[in-house]
């Protein structure tokens, strides 16, 4: 396809044509099958770019815990009242307590932000959610039983059980034991297990990524940068971490 036609396609799909240009171009599209095919292809590329943009944006949102606290919030939206406002009669002491609470939370957050400049790394290196648990009648019961503990935040319990498992791949065990230690912020222990994962393992990339987290926590930035080199650049948060490490290593 000629470059000129491709640029016209871009102009068309990005809505940059005048009404007259659009009309003429749409006539051409009807009679030129190749151009129509190319249009559909470019539409998909643009949609994939938008998809990536939205996906990146969504990583900053979390389902609100506050909204989940009230059972009434779980009703389907069709049942929700249609009025746009509601009146809340609040007792003064409730309001006063809220103000105090907000003030305290604000102070707490502010002081934490000041004292923990790496706080946002907890979001980047979010905790591995673990594998779906299958508690059927199988001989890997202990492995999945420990996975339930892991998901429940009972990391020490999970480590104890996984240490007794022998019928699961070594790399899988090392990875999850390492992750459990990492969640306990026992960095050295976590590192010991994660660095054992062999190159051929499908968990290698993830283990390298979390090793970066460990070295950052230990303030061993050179080692963190070395581990990061083994992580694919398209990993979410990669560039942010790379920039952070560059500033630390300078």
């Amino acid at each position: 396809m000629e470059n000129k036609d491709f640029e016209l396609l871009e102009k068309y799909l990005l809505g940059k044509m005048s009404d007259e240009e659009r009309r003429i171009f749409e006539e051409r599209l009807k009679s030129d099958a190749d151009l129509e095919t190319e249009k559909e292809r470019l539409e998909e590329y643009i949609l994939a770019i938008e998809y990536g943009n939205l996906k990146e944006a969504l990583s900053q949102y979390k389902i609100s815990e506050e909204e989940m606290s009230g059972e009434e919030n779980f009703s389907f939206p069709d049942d929700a009242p249609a009025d746009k406002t509601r009146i809340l009669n609040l007792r003064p002491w409730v309001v006063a307590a809220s103000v105090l609470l907000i003030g305290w939370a604000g102070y707490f957050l502010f002081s934490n932000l000041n004292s923990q400049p790496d706080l946002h790394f907890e979001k980047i290196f979010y905790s591995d959610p673990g594998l779906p648990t299958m508690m059927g009648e199988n001989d890997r019961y202990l492995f999945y039983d420990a996975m339930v503990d892991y998901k429940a935040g009972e990391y020490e319990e999970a480590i104890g059980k996984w240490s007794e498992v022998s019928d699961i791949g070594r790399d899988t065990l090392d990875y999850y034991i390492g992750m459990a230690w990492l969640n306990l912020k026992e960095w050295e222990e976590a590192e010991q297990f994660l660095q054992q994962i062999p190159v051929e393992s499908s968990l290698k990339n993830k283990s390298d990524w979390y090793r970066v987290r460990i070295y950052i926590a230990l303030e061993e930035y050179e080692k963190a940068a070395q581990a990061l080199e083994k992580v694919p650049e398209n990993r979410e948060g990669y560039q942010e971490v790379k920039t952070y490490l560059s500033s630390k290593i300078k």
Partner: protein
Amino acid sequence: MDCKVSLFIAILAVNRITMKVTEPRFSDEELVEGLKRQDPVMIQYLYQNAGPMVYKLVVNAGGDGNDAEDVFQEGILATYLNIRTGKYKLSAQARLTTYLVQICKYKWLDHVKSAYVSKNILGFDNELLPEVQNPDQDEKEDQIKMLHRCIQELGETCRRILQLFYWEKKSYDEIATQIGQTPSSAKNQKYRCMKKLKELATTV
């Protein structure tokens, strides 16, 4: 600051007050248009209004909070694609938030089903879940996800240029300023990125 807070509390304590809290509620038209623009206000609204339902749905079905977050994110992305491709059509019977929750439900069922399939591939047992029919898991979504992975492989500079040009609709002059190149270099670079994307997409 403490004095101001104390004063405020004192004023509240002597005056019983009625607070009028305005809750933004959006029509489906507003939500659809807002989601098309990827408007943060609309996204936040969906997280606040549909998110807890999906959370409860997933957690009650054996998942955890992280599963719920993943499923909800996938649900919004699928809804976005369906809006953009015209698959979602505005109607009084299918409110957008209800539609989104329904998609999330199918996503979670798919997730559970794939876990069972993995289980069988791994040879744990021969049990199979009944077929879960998801009308919203279509080829288009798979195709866009595949292209998204190809774009990820292009590297940061290409991703940025394509995002600036095709999503933010910036001119080459503006792109050049942002990436520290001349406008003609930015144009050439974008051309090379698209060429590479095409190559990757056809080899997958």
